């Protein structure tokens, strides 16, 4: 019987290696799998490259990985949040490298990784300093830049419901980056508020089919309290 549900955060994080590229779901705090991030801190992997829309808030979640000096590089679209203190400290101390890219390019690069597309052209960033050094090409008289797929070793995602096959649903805007990150990594780990029986999910409504998911941890934490 296929059963992707694991019992502990330690099991969920088993085997994650130093130097991994970690795709971290969420937009601000919404849809961000805090329990898995804490598990990753506990697990101890270091020299991580983290791909996330934001660079952590206060002293929670991703911020804890900065404080513990586990992150070598962060790739994000918007490092500034209401309180990016841990990131800024690490960044100013030269402990972490920052790569900023347009939000849609970040999403599409991961979707490409998941879809077997090694590279694609996009109009986003053409004529700006974020396009410097990038290959440019015209199609139909308009300029585009080449962007390569962004692959993860690990994706940490947050879901609303999950079943033992790893099928996932999301809630409202907590969907955000989670489905594309789930597609783009070799190992995808989800934390889910609810575990449901196989067959309980509406087959018309599975934004992340279990084929993209390796492990599921039940984390019924209730309502997010920060955005």
């Amino acid at each position, binding site marked *: 019987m296929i059963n992707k549900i694991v019992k502990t955060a330690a099991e969920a994080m088993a085997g994650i290696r130093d130097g991994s590229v970690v795709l971290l779901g969420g*937009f601000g705090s919404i*849809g961000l799998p805090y329990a898995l991030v804490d598990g990753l801190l506990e697990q101890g992997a270091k020299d991580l490259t983290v791909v996330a829309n934001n660079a952590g808030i206060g002293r929670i979640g991703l911020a804890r990985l900065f404080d513990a000096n586990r992150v070598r590089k962060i790739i994000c679209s918007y490092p500034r949040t209401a309180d990016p203190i841990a990131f800024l400290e690490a960044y100013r101390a030269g402990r972490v490298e920052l790569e900023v890219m*347009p*939000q*849609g390019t970040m999403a599409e690069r991961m979707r490409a990784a998941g879809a077997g597309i090694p590279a694609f052209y996009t109009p*986003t960033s053409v004529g*700006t300093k974020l396009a410097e050094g990038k290959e440019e090409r015209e199609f139909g008289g308009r300029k585009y830049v080449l962007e390569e797929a962004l692959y993860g070793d690990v994706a940490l995602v947050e879901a609303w419901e999950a079943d033992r096959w790893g099928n996932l649903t999301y809630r409202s805007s907590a969907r*955000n980056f989670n489905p*594309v990150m789930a597609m783009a990594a070799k190992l995808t780990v989800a934390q889910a508020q609810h575990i449901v029986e196989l067959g309980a999910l509406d087959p018309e409504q599975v934004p992340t089919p279990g084929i993209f998911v390796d492990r599921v941890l039940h984390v019924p934490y209730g309502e997010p309290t920060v955005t």
Partner: protein
Amino acid sequence: MNVNVSANVLTACRPWSRVDIAAHAARDIPEGYYVNLGIGIPVLVADHIPADREVIIHSENGVLGMGPAPAPDKINRWLINAGKQYVTLVPGGCYMHHADSFAVIRGGHLDLCVLGAFQVAENGDLANWATSASDSTPAVGGAMDLAAGAKAIWVLMEHTTKSGESRLKHRCTYPLTAPGVVKRVYTNLAVLDVTDDGFVVREMAPGLTLEALQDVTEARLRIAN
């Protein structure tokens, strides 16, 4: 909430407020438009669309059909906008993931994106994400995708910086978000179109003359025929 403009202009006119600016843009959005509203003055636009005019608001974090802020006891804590404020979903709205949301943007499906900006140049260049080329922690978010993708870009901003420097430029001095994309600018002093011949003034704040407006504007202005 009026902004800092040079003294001669201030004495000569009654500048529009941030709410006025948003209301002006709202007035000009046709029914049926799909619109993304940026952080800052643009988000205020939603509150000023006439109740009998259906305009569908997109938020790049995967919300299509965004409604106003919820009552304090009706908050859905999983539903935020791109500025990370709690919002609502209107009937007919739906959620999508980030790659689909940016397919909407990049694919040219938005009729309009209303953005804030630091500077707009008379050739339509937009600078709204970084105030210097050496900014050590630049934050681009979805700005470049929106600027490159929407069918039209309108900018809502104050006419000058706090120190009185014009935000309507001959050429942008800040790093670009996208070249040549801005179609219209709403400021506290004027509404302007960006044309092949540069900025054309469509409307001015009460009491303002073109000469006074030109005085506080770096870019050359023309009056609409």
